[in-house]
């Protein structure tokens, strides 16, 4: 592999990893704070992508569409938490698994009814349509760099929010001791609603951001869900920092494995996960 190709693949890996982080961050946040394993997280990613397509068709602007989609996702999150998730806080994890699997069915069915089964595509917004030449043949699209920067931005905001704001303080407190937070007179249920809604929104935003560079198809959520779980588990459940590091790791390993060991590339991220869990059974950054 030449140096220039190596560098290109490095960028590819980082970019993929950053997108994975964006999707996985919501999952790990919700698990960390609420202890809920949301298997329907991938469906939210799918919903985000479909919403982005729908509103681009109707408003013509990607920016407007992104904002509307994010707001709708937030509302879906609040609704789902209030009506369904809330009933199951005192039940065991497996009931939550069953509930969220039921939700996957419902979201998939709704997607089929509302938008049909044809593959859809969103074009890259005009203002971000250019590309930067890398080699004679290869260039790098501006939009993908923009998405990578967006992911870094969101990571920074999350870091700031969790470590420096009141909400973040409550989140951290809720993670370590639910009863104590309640004793301090804080409505933990409201906190949970907010956190769950943010988690849903993060998944949907990832779907919106990915829409112009992927194909929008039924079942797109399930495939990404497993990869996200790999990321979250390698990083240590509930750790945002862990998810960030793990996402980059998975992105890089997957990218380089595709080129260097193609025979094993399908298994590589699972080998990585098994290996890390055997060394550190709680993931890299477990609390």
């Amino acid at each position, binding site marked *: 592999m030449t140096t220039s190709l190596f560098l290109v693949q490095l960028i590819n890996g980082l970019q993929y990893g950053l997108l994975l982080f964006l999707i996985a961050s919501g999952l790990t946040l919700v698990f960390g704070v609420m202890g809920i394993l949301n298997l329907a997280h991938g469906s939210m990613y799918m919903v985000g992508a479909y919403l982005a397509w729908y509103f681009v068709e109707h408003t013509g602007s990607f920016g407007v569409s992104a904002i509307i989609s994010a707001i709708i996702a937030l509302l879906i999150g609040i609704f789902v938490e209030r009506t369904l998730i809330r009933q199951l806080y005192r039940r065991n994890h497996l009931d939550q698994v069953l509930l969220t699997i*039921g939700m996957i069915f419902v979201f998939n*069915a709704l997607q*089929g*009814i509302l938008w049909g089964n044809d593959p859809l595509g969103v074009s890259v917004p005009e203002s971000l349509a250019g590309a930067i030449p890398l080699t004679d043949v290869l260039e790098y699209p501006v939009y993908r760099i923009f998405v990578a920067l967006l992911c870094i931005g969101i990571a920074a905001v999350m870091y700031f929010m969790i470590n420096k704001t009141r909400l973040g303080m409550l989140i951290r407190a809720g993670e370590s001791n639910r009863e104590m937070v309640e004793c301090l007179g804080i409505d933990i249920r409201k906190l949970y609603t907010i956190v769950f809604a943010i988690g849903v929104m993060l998944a949907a935003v990832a779907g919106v951001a990915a829409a112009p560079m992927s194909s929008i198809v039924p079942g797109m959520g399930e495939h990404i869900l497993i990869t996200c779980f*790999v990321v979250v*588990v390698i990083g240590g459940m509930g750790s945002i920092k862990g998810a960030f590091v793990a996402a980059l790791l998975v992105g890089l390993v997957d990218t380089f494995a595709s080129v260097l060991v193609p025979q094993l590339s399908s*298994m590589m991220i699972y080998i990585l*996960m098994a290996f890390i*869990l055997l060394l550190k059974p709680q993931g890299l950054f477990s609390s």
Partner: protein
Amino acid sequence: MLFNKRTERIFIWVFFPLALLMPLFLAENAFYISKMTSVMIFALFVMSLDYLVGRCGLITLGHAMFYGLGGYLFWMIAPEYEAVNFWVYTFYICMIASAVALVIGFLVLRTSGIYMIMITLAFAQMAFYFFSDSIEFGGNDGLFIYVKPETSIFGLSFFNLDDPVHFYYLCLLSLFNTLVFFRLLIRSRFGRVVDAIHENPGRTTALGYNIFLFRLMSYVIASALGAYAGYLFTLQYGFVNPSMLAWTTSGSALVMSILGGMGSIYGAILGTFVYEGLHYTLEHLTEHWMLFMGALIIAMVMVFKNGIAGYMEKLLEKRS
């Protein structure tokens, strides 16, 4: 008494006689026989998972690996155009699956909770891609089994596997035996230790038990039975496909097991029949069956605190 819950006894007395008599009424419709057979085979698989998840507290999302392995192993070790002995190959397949489970269990049981879910998934995905990527194993399109085994013991043969009704009874017998086996296991000394580990691992360790060893044994037993179920599935239609090992197969089994009532063992049969029954009914009624299926699953989680078995027990058990 072996079956110490009244609900379980009622269930057994209703289900097994009905299942025993069913072919007499429906023998002319080959489909009902084959559908019942495949649901029973999957119920056996779910039961092995239910023991692991419900009784041992070991949640796995990789159990389908053994289900698929059961099928592929038969293709690998049996000669292509020669009828082998069913019982001998059952033994071989369970032994090989146990050996695999021993190695994998040794690795995955160091973790627990969500991490164990994921590491079992990791191994299952590796196995899935191993079979679906290799041309020698038929790749994505799977493989055919052309000759079904014969079932003689000491020259006596009770089942002819080419006859769907015979195969049906073989699967019914297997299901019943598995249920009795798990009940005996749970009642045994071994089972009581496993229960204690599930309740309180720390205290059980303090009593001098090596909990890792007990968990490993449970994992091996459940995996061998899972492989047996996969072996039966493969024999039913003579067809093996990597989708048997897919995580969605593990996921469905987990759903059925939770639905039936975790750890109740007979609930696995309930969960599987209810899930498959709903699926079959809904997909023949409407193209949007997923919507109703999803809504029903959600409703059932809300209503049943401990699955269907738990709900029935609430109605039928005498409060004491």
